[in-house]
């Protein structure tokens, strides 16, 4: 899986919702799906890294408008997992951890690298964002990222499906 070691850059300081233009061809970053009790989304990317980055934005969109968050602060993210599912849970969990401990809001993701590592899989990258005190509206809370109905689908691109506990 050489593609997974490649770098991708897809941070946007502005722009709306889950749709992103990629040099003319429009690609959906993520979709929020109906779920009775919790919240569910699908995130897309041409690579695993891009899909992970878009999953981060999908998660953020359940709590705040990530496109409005100014990229004032950079937070390194490094996490691992025994498989890609656990890697995804741990990666998205970082966003909740940074919110709770530093009131940090993710507005973008930069330089994600995913590669096989000691524990199975390893992820390195950066979150770009701002502190909550920057005057942002928080419209919802997410308690945790779950494995429930999680899917990692690979074809021409990568699709990730995640249910979060809200």
């Amino acid at each position, binding site marked *: 899986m050489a593609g997974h070691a490649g770098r991708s850059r897809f941070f946007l300081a502005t722009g709306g919702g889950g749709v992103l233009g990629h040099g003319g061809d429009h690609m959906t970053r993520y979709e*929020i*799906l*109906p*779920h*009775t*009790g*919790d*919240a569910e989304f699908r995130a897309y990317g041409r690579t695993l890294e891009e899909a992970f980055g878009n999953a981060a934005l999908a998660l953020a969109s359940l*709590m705040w408008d990530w496109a409005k968050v100014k990229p004032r602060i950079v937070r390194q993210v490094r996490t691992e997992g*025994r498989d890609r*599912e*656990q890697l995804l*849970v*741990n990666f998205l*969990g970082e966003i*909740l*951890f940074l*919110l*709770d*401990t530093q*009131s940090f*809001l993710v507005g973008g993701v930069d330089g994600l690298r995913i590669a096989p590592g000691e524990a199975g899989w390893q992820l390195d990258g950066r979150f770009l964002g701002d502190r*909550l005190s920057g005057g942002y*509206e*928080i*419209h*919802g*809370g997410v*308690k*945790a*990222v*779950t*494995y*429930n*109905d*999680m899917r990692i689908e690979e074809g021409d691109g990568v699709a990730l499906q995640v*249910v979060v*506990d*809200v």
Partner: protein
Amino acid sequence: MELRKISEIAWEIPKDGDMKVPGLVYASRKLLTGVENDKTLTQARNVACLPGIRRMSYVMPDAHQGYGFPIGGVAAFDLEEGIISPGGVGYDINCGVRLLRSDFTEKDLEDRRRALLAGIFEEVPAGVGKGGVTKLSRNVLRDILSRGAEWAVENGYGESGDLERTEERGRMGEADPAAVSDRAMERGVPQLGTLGAGNHFLEIQQVDKIYDRPVAAAFGLDAEGQVTVMIHCGSRGLGHQVASDYINLMENAFGTAGLPDRELVNAPFRSGLARRYYGAMCAAVNYAFANRQMIAHRVRDVFAKVMGAAGGMGQVYDVCHNVAKVETHELGGLRKDLCVHRKGATRSFGPGRPEVPAVYRSVGQPVLIPGSMGTASYVLAGTREAEGLSFGSTAHGAGRLMSRHEALRRFRGEQIRDDLARRGVELRAGSWKGVAEEASGAYKDVDEVVRVSHEAGLGRLVARLVPLAVMKG
């Protein structure tokens, strides 16, 4: 899925395949329509396949689809052959409800409702990413994880009578702070004494209707129009992190092969990992008890300041909605210790159980069931028969019917505020979008949920409470 009708309010999921026991759903036809349309029944069936499960995989009247176990799922496991599962407790460990009574009447509050709500909004931090007003050291946090509400009362937050009127006296003795990760501790430090967001709320209410006067009086609920305060919140990021940590640890230790849903991951109850999870879970339970204790204290302060009198704001009770506990139950004519998981369910012990506080032992424990935002909440009393029907458990709320996404499409927060205002209910919230997500139209009919609980014998109706003022995170 085929259901076998037992009565108008009880439906069996017959045992087949890998199921070790049958499932049992407590629901009217109306409530059943909700659970048949999502994965609730499949999830209850999955739980029935877990090792060491005893008697039945139960589904409470307010159940809806969760992850791993359904929300509103109750399952008990043998201590030798069975398991403990973080997904059977949920991420918000000891999400629960505390109810305060008062000597104030709705008329006493009159024009001071807005001032009370503003005062509480000021004193009780709510919403996402909002830290508490108390600076904590790691050492103090460890003490809180060990001692729960007891720590809070000793440090000036509340009265000793509160402890007696709290499930587990506000402290689970098996708590092991050393089993709580640094990350969980880090999330717990800034959040003690905060309400959080989502479905968490704080309500000033009045007693609207009393169904059982002697029992209501025993609970301190004397008459219609009496003011009460309900606090609904949990263990915040600390509890969420404990659940996430141990789901990963159990996956790494025992793998996920053969599980229909990774959220069902578990550990044999007698394993070292299960013991550590139980210790960490109890620590998170204690954090949540301390959290509600501190919030209740601030609410009393605000009332005393605004009303100019303390107003006899004693505690009715404080219950857990998400927890696993070792309890003694009758099984095949023998008394046996079992690990009872209640995920979105309330313990509903009847008269005589030693776990029920002495002050309530002759009538059964109070069961607190919050409605959705702006609707009625209920106080029930636990029953003896519930032990045989559901390991002494009943519903925990209204139960969602519609996704938050759909609710956002259909409702507007400002509109809900105006509708409530027309009914004389004040609303303060951190976010109007958050209000729309929690619109009462997105929830099941709580009246129907408690009716089924009452008729099935899971918990008897005592009183209905309606909101006067609502604060949402």
